[in-house]
């Protein structure tokens, strides 16, 4: 893998939130062209790491570079899209109205509204108010907003929690095809069967990176036959 592929470079990232040192000094690179899974229990620092990459987190030290620029710079705001764990959409607007508004903000062409509605499978619900959608549908609406601007880097915080298996499979197929098209996709999850779908995994525990590698590589390394066991072995060894 050449260095050109490294789109996100993190060096000695330190983040303190309140009393807690969430990330004591994380270093990591994330490549384009693959789906990278950020795996770890809740409270391990996944969200803080993602927020730092997007540039919305106040950090205490270290460097975060995305596409060759410091995270959070104005130009990156067009090229990096972020989906938070809780759906960040207006509950008193319809799916379509939400997308139309964010499309204006992103200066995305209006065809993208229909394309992203189709991409997340919300065609039948597009005229419903967000507050009348199920939790899973609302997450998809939030994901659709992230897809609007055809970003180069997608940072997705547990985007498929609570979705039905068919839809989850379809969304993962989309993440794969975005990666295949040269985008950088970073997805956090705490579900092991989702981890198996990733090309690369980053295992995070208590703010420390415990291991990185492909799912098969991690299984080989630990001599286990499922990722749950591999994670346990790596966590205990660390």
């Amino acid at each position: 893998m050449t260095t050109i592929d490294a789109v996100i470079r993190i060096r000695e990232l330190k983040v303190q939130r309140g009393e807690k040192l969430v990330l004591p000094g994380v270093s990591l690179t994330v490549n384009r062209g693959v789906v990278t899974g950020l795996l770890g229990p809740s409270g391990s620092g996944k969200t803080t790491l993602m927020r730092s990459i997007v540039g919305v987190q106040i950090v205490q030290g270290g460097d975060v570079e995305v596409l060759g620029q410091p995270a959070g710079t104005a130009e990156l705001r067009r090229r990096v899209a972020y989906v938070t764990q809780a759906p960040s959409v207006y509950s008193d607007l319809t799916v379509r109205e939400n997308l139309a508004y964010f499309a204006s903000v992103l200066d995305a062409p209006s065809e993208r509204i229909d394309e992203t509605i189709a991409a997340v499978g919300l065609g039948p619900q597009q005229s419903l108010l967000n507050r009348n959608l199920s939790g899973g549908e609302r997450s998809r609406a939030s994901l659709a907003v992230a897809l609007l601007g055809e970003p180069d880097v997608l940072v997705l915080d547990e985007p498929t929690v609570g979705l039905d298996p068919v839809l989850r499979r379809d969304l993962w197929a989309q993440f794969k095809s975005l990666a295949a098209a040269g985008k950088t996709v970073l997805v956090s999850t705490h579900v092991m069967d989702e981890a198996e779908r990733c090309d690369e995994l980053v295992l995070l525990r208590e703010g420390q990176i415990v291991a990185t590698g492909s799912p098969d590589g991690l299984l080989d390394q630990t001599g286990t036959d499922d990722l749950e066991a591999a994670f346990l072995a790596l966590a205990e060894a660390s």
Partner: protein
Amino acid sequence: MSARVTVATAYRVAAQLRRDHRTLALILVVPPALLTLFKYVFYYQPETFDRIGAPLIGLFPLVMMFLITSIAMLRERTTGTLERLMSMPLAKPDLLFGYGLAFAFVAAVQAGVTGAVAFGLLDVETAGPIWGVVALAIANAVLGMALGLFLSAFSTSEFQAVQFMPAFILPQLLLAGLFIPRDQMPELLERISDFLPFTYAYEALAKVAADDVDARFWFDVAVVVGCIVLALVLGALTLRRRTP
């Protein structure tokens, strides 16, 4: 800053309000209803109602837009939509002016409806031009919006946000000269009221209603505009791209 994003934001804020029929009804019905109540409370002191009737038309938008904006902006902060916008190519003034545009429009409708009831049914009188009252009502709405936007940064729940009404708005209303002329208040209170934006908002309205447009009136208007700018700048400072 971009006109496209500002207009889209104004349209989005208006669409959210339009969805909320009850709030919309309250915005349009409460001011005329309160004005009617004032008229009959002061039934035996008609000179008092004559004095405050017209200025009240322009003060309602200030209070209501303050409340609505503080809740709306608090929601943007707590539901993550503000964080999402801050991670997008949206300039802070786009958001501020978008809100301002939407609420100025709502205030114009509100002042129009309240004015129609006041001048048409309640015999409210104004020596100055009615459009002057409406124009000040819009300016006051924008002031209320700007103050609400700024103060929303200091509340973490809707319970706290609504408490700013008695804590921040009510004292200003009492001191503005609306109920008792300022020079009939104890010296200390009069001096305090010199520093409160409502004082100037009310005085400007009272002067239009009395057709007493002098240099002091333009000073009042300048103070109101200055307060709008100051509150917007302070509000912009509370919109952070990065949060802890």
